């Protein structure tokens, strides 16, 4: 049974990647609105991996400490969405969002709040777009700013009884003329992956069916 949930057929994988691509493109447009500069995106990667592999995928690109804004989502499927970037980029991102007008000490004071708000806008526009396309509402928790090793971000929030396997979606972004780069990641456990798989099948049937609409 778990084998089935773990396996996405080619078209399902394709559909999920396309959903993430559209969601993240909207998120990048929102982020562009906040920082006033173009946000460049990579092509998304969608994989079913262990939490360890998920954190290794980030760690092999980023050696220093990281900051993440995390939001839980709940609905037809549950999981976590994260906006992750190197801690050294954090103040630069805050300066971008606040428009370079603030004195340095105020930038420091605002850091937490600005990060949470940026994460909130980016992750919400991504998740809301996906929820709309799948025609299922998702409830989003308040954003939480976490710091430290990448591995911490990918630990199960509650119990870890899924054998540590997650659906890991990630995409990297960079902001023009600023030394800011980061990742958007989404983690879902096995029951959610199975639920998502059903919704993707419905989505495919909807967009492909001749009598749809």
């Amino acid at each position: 049974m778990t084998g089935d949930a773990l396996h996405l057929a080619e078209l399902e994988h394709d559909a999920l990647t396309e959903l993430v691509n559209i969601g993240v493109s909207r998120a990048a447009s929102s982020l562009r609105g906040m920082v006033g500069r173009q946000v460049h995106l990579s092509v998304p990667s969608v994989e079913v991996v262990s939490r360890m592999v998920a954190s290794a995928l980030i760690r092999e690109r980023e050696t220093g400490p990281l900051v993440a804004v995390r939001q839980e989502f709940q609905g037809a499927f549950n999981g976590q969405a994260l906006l992750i970037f190197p801690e050294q980029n954090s103040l630069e991102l805050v300066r971008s969002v606040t428009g370079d007008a603030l004195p340095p000490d105020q930038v420091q004071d605002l850091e937490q709040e600005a990060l949470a708000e940026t994460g909130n806008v980016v992750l919400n526009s991504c998740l809301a777009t996906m929820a709309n396309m799948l025609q299922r509402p998702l409830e989003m928790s308040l954003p939480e700013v976490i710091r430290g090793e990448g591995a911490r971000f990918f630990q199960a929030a509650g119990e870890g009884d899924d054998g540590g396997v997650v659906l890991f979606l990630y995409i990297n972004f960079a902001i023009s003329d600023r030394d800011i780069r980061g990742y958007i990641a989404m983690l879902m456990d096995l029951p959610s992956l199975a639920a998502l798989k059903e919704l993707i099948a419905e989505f495919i049937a909807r967009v492909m069916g001749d009598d749809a609409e």
Partner: protein
Amino acid sequence: MTTILIVDDSKLARIVVSKAIAGLQPDWEKIEAGSADEALERLANAEVDVVILDYNMPGRSGLDLAEALRAERPEMPIALATANVQDEVIARARAANVTFVAKPINEDGLRGFLSGAALQLRSAAR
């Protein structure tokens, strides 16, 4: 006969675009490519009148391809399909005289581009 080339790395997205085109211009012949490179191959081997391109693809982006195509085919109707509505992306598309179409694609979103393209092709044929 009008031939439209659909370029998207997602097979599902190509199916969706193809379906919308079939609803709006049922007589048009549709050919597909999964990347910018594949699109260039198709263009070299077939008479293509209209092109619709995805923006975010592995390898060359749809916008890079659109700009290259525009240099060779100043009159060809070209559309860029993306949910990435950043000012810079839209400005580059406009500068290359490429129509911007919002993803997810449906018949309504594609109607303006396709009828404009059909009109342009008819008047060029006269």
